[in-house]
């Protein structure tokens, strides 16, 4: 989902709001909302939680404090899980283990030239817009994890897939003044060979 949450590289935001020795929670409700949200997340996936936040009305999202976004999603998830109407029906035992072995061996190798695909979808994607269609180099095999688009759509982890650490030249992404390197984690299906 290409929403206003996809902030990488955006202009229009000011100085970093650095707070000296800030509290864990700035107001009591934040702690309670966080705890409740973590509980609700246990019935689904963190991917669906993130995708839910991404559905916040854009102006509301950008005017919100951090835990207001958790609260907004908690309300949605509680409703979706039918927890506001009555006692919970016993949900079947979960067996979607995100640490399971992927089905296939890795397709890409360290040093390989690859290109980030352009997975435009109203669903949940972890490919930020600023990285789309850029060429990069696989630095290493990062980890294996279920793909977020399915985990968000179904509320359950799918079969884990390979994830690669890919480095991009920031100059290609943000212009010649950018002399740094960008390191991003990209699922195998969101990459294509570019040798």
């Amino acid at each position, binding site marked *: 989902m290409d929403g206003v949450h996809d902030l990488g590289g955006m202009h229009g935001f000011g100085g970093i709001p650095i707070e000296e020795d800030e509290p864990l929670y700035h107001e009591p409700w934040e702690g*309670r909302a966080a705890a*409740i949200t973590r509980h609700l997340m246990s019935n689904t996936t963190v991917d669906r939680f993130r995708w839910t936040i991404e559905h916040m009305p854009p102006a509301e999202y950008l005017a919100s404090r*951090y835990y207001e976004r958790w*609260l907004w999603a908690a309300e949605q998830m509680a409703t979706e899980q039918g927890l506001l109407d009555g006692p919970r029906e016993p949900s079947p035992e979960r067996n979607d283990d995100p640490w399971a072995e992927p089905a296939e061996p890795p397709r890409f190798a360290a040093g390989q030239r690859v290109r980030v695909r352009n997975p435009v979808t109203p669903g949940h994607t972890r490919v930020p817009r600023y990285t789309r269609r850029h060429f990069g180099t696989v630095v290493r095999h990062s980890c294996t*994890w279920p793909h977020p688009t399915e985990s968000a759509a179904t509320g359950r982890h799918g079969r884990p897939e390979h994830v690669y650490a890919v480095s991009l030249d920031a100059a290609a992404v943000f212009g010649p*003044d950018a002399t*740094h390197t960008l390191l991003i*984690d990209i699922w195998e299906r969101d990459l294509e060979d570019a040798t």
Partner: protein
Amino acid sequence: MSHDSTPHERTEALEHHLEEHGHVHHDDVDAAIVAREMAFESGDGPSPALGAKIVARAWTDPEFKARLVDDGTATLSEYTPMTVPVAVMENTPDVHHMIVCTLCSCYPGAVLGDPPAWYKSFEYRSRVVREPRAVLAEFGMALGDDVEVRVVDSTSEQRFMVLPVRPEGTEGWAPDELAALVTRNSMIGTGAPLRP
């Protein structure tokens, strides 16, 4: 839960509804908050202090450091339960890493506890991938032009933590003395460890 009520009122209403049907219990919520704050303050559980302890060990134990950098998840699980993969990015005099999550707020919480507000801010999330040195300056840090800056965007479920460069003039220091030099920001990449 209408949206003209305050977040406090909405949280109360939500908790009440959930409790009414037995989905949550007031005391469990209290307990969860206390546990998280205790871990954070005490430095036993996920907290900057736990991270500092791990960094200090890495500075003084090459074998541990090698394992940490090679397989963060396995090595860190000796200290704290790993619910998601975590990678440790080693800074050197020539390479400086900065961690961000431009899409939400992914952070190595299993090690460092909850992230600071600035890490979750729209300002940091939007600017650090585009102008890292300008962001560093706002944290009072400047790097030589010859230093390669690598901005790591936590776009998968894997989280990232920085292993900062050990400050000069700390030869022979014991791990817990070294740990005192390790700031939270230095483990995210927006600051250097304190100097002796």
